[in-house]
């Protein structure tokens, strides 16, 4: 960025989080961090108008993308929001990724760009407000600049396609106005936002903005970065849960050409929070990745088993069922009405138990970090999802204040919740401190599969009471699970059931009598959120059970769901979102989904249909599948996904998220499980954690978004939860085999 503009005359849109968490958008004199420029733009005559916007004299616009791009499309969708309100043509916009924007306001931590974490449910709602306002405020500056040039009142001026337009038809390019605009006093009040009818970017199918760099191999992901004088590290981690290193013969490893050093990494004690490294290990530091891997292979370690040497999936399952059988020691999560009375009065009582396994995130790009720790500053380049956490960890471990930490946010090769934890950053800090050089830590796939924060394991026990009209009068959901909340300082004060049960999840508010009870299952497996952490954990049980009730009472599963949803109304306190749960929106996605899969038409081809719906973080989703068995192979002939996410920002991006979510849902529902035996994870790499290949995926996922003018919500986790139950329901329709345990395929092959 250059242009010879006097820095002191610039005014920057000042964005920071105040203590209450509300975003302040105003103009201040604080020197905003300059936008990082794409190499081809360096030397161009660009003027920075806000932390998010640079304008060139030839009217090209550079917009900063603030989110962590892990595949959810925020590098495209968030800049679209700014460009819309800035009123520029998308074809003139170049997007550049912003770094982490930590600042301190009066000693309070803040971020000049607002929220940069991608946690799956806040990204779009926050951006919808903040980034449109940022775009509108920048546009107001350009209008004010034109008003000064023409000596006209700003109120008489309009904008179109990167120009300010006067009533008499005169036009000035933003590029011409940029320098004047940068010198003007800032608007203090939020600008009026566009009437949605005038949107010309929001709602238009828009391709991934950096696709060209990706398909030519130019994009640098976190693991693709290098620094001068750096070393490479891999870590051999203790294979048993919570185990420690007893001794290690390093002699052969040290002889490997290129190996520089070998460093021991302490693990956590059994009761300490897992906020640092996840496991005890031995880091091999070398001149290149291959030498580090070869050095690691030559290590001869002796491990002491941890406090969970007996832990196994079979034992966990048995203990979960025993807890549910005994029924004591449960923690009440929620209750309404009189469930015991409902049991006594019931004409029919139904029970079923469903088991869901541990799951690994397995992002295509394994965890890792490149870090350089200097005397008075540090640089981190890594594929991240929670840069706030990374910044805190580095500061705590190095003693450097957070203001001197530079954190770049390259594109990530997926995350799915894995990078919400920064254990790999902590490891990289330890290795870099030991080697006193910049270090790039790489996790091998074997590390990633066997050392994750897994989606919890659990058994759901569902019971329903039906009255004489076969209406569902009472609903009991008891869950015995390894709590998601484990050894995690950030959520230590949360209730133990959080992340495994939701008090206000379906069918709360829809049945007269309700009880939800949680039984904590002790385990040494590290756990945390996976994709759609809560819905993907319980939707299988809840949505299969509804089909079981429908079958037992000879009713249509779609009709039963609609009956339970009842009259169109809003129920307060929808889970995981500030919005209410709207029964009409849920009913609509279900109806449309049934229609698209041709639910009511009679089939004679042996294909079976299954359907399910779920509410995830403010979005409403229904899935339906048409499947057939071909010998021992399950063939998905059609996959339909209907969503209501409010207003659609980028239809092409939304479709990509829902295709992806649906396929992730199929992949995990059919085949994926992490199992533990003798205190160690049994899976090691893709051959035993079999992600769905193209051959098993449906040729197409038919995605339909309900048209809506409501505020948009995140869609990256939306497409997953209702897949497993819809598939299980379709398998029942096809084979009459009811599967109550995930993953489905091993159970199906066992039962057929």
């Amino acid at each position, binding site marked *: 960025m250059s242009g010879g503009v006097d820095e002191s005359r610039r005014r920057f849109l000042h964005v920071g989080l105040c203590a209450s968490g509300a975003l302040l958008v105003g103009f201040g004199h604080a020197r905003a961090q300059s936008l990082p420029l794409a190499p081809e733009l360096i030397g161009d005559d660009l003027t920075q108008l806000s932390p998010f916007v640079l304008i060139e004299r030839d009217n090209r616009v550079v917009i900063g993308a603030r989110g962590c791009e892990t595949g959810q499309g925020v590098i495209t969708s968030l800049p679209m929001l700014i460009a819309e309100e800035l009123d520029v043509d998308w074809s003139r916009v170049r997007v550049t990724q912003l770094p982490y924007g930590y600042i301190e306001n009066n000693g309070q931590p803040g971020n000049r760009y607002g929220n940069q974490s991608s946690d799956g449910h806040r990204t779009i709602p926050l951006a919808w407000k903040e980034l449109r306002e940022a775009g509108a405020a920048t546009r107001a500056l350009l209008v004010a600049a034109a008003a000064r040039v023409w000596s006209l009142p700003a109120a008489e001026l309009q904008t179109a396609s990167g120009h300010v337009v006067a009533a008499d038809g005169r036009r000035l390019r933003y590029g011409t106005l940029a320098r004047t605009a940068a010198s003007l006093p800032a608007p203090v009040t939020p600008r009026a936002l566009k009437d949605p009818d005038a949107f010309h970017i929001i709602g238009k199918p828009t391709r991934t903005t950096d*696709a060209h760099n990706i398909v030519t191999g130019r994009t640098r992901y976190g693991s693709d970065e290098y620094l001068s004088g750096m070393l490479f590290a891999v870590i051999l981690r203790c294979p048993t849960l919570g185990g420690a290193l007893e001794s290690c013969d390093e002699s052969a490893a040290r002889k490997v050409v290129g190996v520089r050093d070998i460093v021991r990494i302490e693990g956590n004690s059994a009761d300490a929070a897992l906020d640092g490294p996840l496991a005890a290990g031995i880091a091999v530091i070398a001149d290149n990745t291959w030498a580090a891997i070869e050095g690691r292979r030559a290590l001869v370690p002796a491990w002491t088993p941890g406090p969970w040497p007996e832990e196994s999936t079979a034992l966990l399952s048995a203990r979960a069922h025993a807890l549910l059988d005994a029924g004591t020691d449960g923690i009440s999560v929620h209750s309404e009405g009189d469930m015991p009375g409902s049991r006594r009065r019931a004409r029919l009582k139904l029970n079923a138990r469903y088991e869901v396994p541990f799951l690994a995130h397995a992002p*295509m790009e394994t965890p890792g970090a490149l870090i350089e720790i200097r005397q008075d500053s540090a640089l981190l380049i890594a594929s991240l999802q929670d840069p706030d956490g990374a910044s805190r960890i580095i500061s705590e471990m190095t003693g450097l204040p957070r203001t001197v930490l530079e954190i770049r946010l390259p594109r990530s090769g997926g*995350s*799915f919740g894995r990078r919400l934890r920064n254990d790999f950053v902590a490891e990289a800090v330890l290795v870099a401190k030991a080697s006193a050089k910049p270090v790039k830590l790489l996790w091998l796939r074997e590390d990633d599969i066997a050392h994750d924060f897994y989606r919890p394991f659990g058994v759901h026990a569902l019971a329903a009471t039906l009255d004489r009209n076969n209406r569902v009068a009472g609903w009991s959901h008891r869950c015995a699970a390894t709590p998601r909340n484990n050894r995690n300082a950030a959520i230590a004060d949360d209730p133990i059931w959080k992340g495994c049960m939701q008090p206000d999840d379906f069918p709360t508010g829809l049945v007269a009598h309700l009880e939800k009870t949680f039984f904590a299952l002790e385990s040494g497996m590290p756990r945390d959120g996976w994709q759609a952490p809560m819905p993907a954990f319980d939707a299988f049980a809840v949505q299969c059970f509804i089909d079981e009730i429908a079958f037992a009472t000879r009713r249509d599963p779609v009709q039963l769901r609609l009956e339970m949803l009842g009259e169109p109304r809003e129920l307060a306190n929808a889970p995981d979102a500030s919005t209410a749960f709207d029964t009409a929106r849920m009913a609509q996605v279900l109806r449309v989904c049934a229609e698209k899969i041709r639910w009511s038409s009679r089939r004679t081809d042996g294909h079976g249909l299954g359907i399910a719906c779920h509410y995830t973080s403010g979005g409403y989703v229904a899935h339906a599948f048409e499947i057939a068995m071909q010998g021992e192979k399950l063939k998905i002939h059609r996959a339909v996904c209907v969503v209501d996410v409010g207003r659609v920002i980028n239809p092409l991006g939304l479709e990509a998220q829902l295709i992806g979510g649906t396929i992730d849902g199929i992949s995990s529902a059919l085949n994926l499980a992490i199992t533990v035996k003798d205190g160690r994870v049994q899976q090691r790499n893709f051959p035993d954690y079999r992600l769905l290949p193209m051959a098993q995926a449906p040729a197409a996922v038919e995605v339909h978004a309900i048209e809506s003018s409501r505020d948009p919500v995140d869609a990256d986790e939306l497409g997953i939860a209702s897949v497993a139950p819809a598939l299980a329901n379709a398998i029942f329709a096809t084979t009459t085999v009811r599967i109550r345990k995930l993953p489905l395929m091993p159970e199906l092959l066992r039962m057929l």
Partner: protein
Amino acid sequence: MNGKPASVQRMHDDATIPPRNTLIAIATEETSMQDDPATPESAASPAEVALDPGTLQLGINGKPYFHRGDPSMPLLWYLRDTLRLTGTKYGCGIGACGACTVLIDGKAAHACETPMLAAAGRQVTTIEGLQGEVLHPVQQAWIEEDVVNCGFCQAGQIMAAVDLLQRKPAPVESDLTAIGNLCRCGSYPRIRRAILRAAELIRTSNR
């Protein structure tokens, strides 16, 4: 596994190790910290000297390179750490995911399972070397069908698709499903569409 790209085993079988003592152009000693690591060793300026025993020669994206390090180092790490051609990705290290797919003598192969010794004497094409003056039709189709989610596997997917379309200019269903490259984001439906579109682009450009 079905549709696995040309296996390393086969490449070992017909590998032609470059003849020793051949007089060829050779440049400066290879280091892992070159300022411009992706610059090939110039064939023009250096004197012609005898190739050291143990030096492996290979072509990458049409240019000659010489490897004097560990002959068992997989091509993947030579491309990435030595040449900084980072478009080829590490995904599993055991040839199970295809994120490291490159073309060796025009055929898809897993760079993570190809030792430098097996790559010697061969022509390697990586994602960076795929385009000529304009994008390769497969790359073009990938953009037009907006295939990318996280994008990490896509270089490998593209190389696998290039390989497929060379063998099967009009691919049918079983050809598409024979591609074993994994996509964790689940972009398969768009990958299919992009391959079919690329086939169409190639057909029309050949007309």
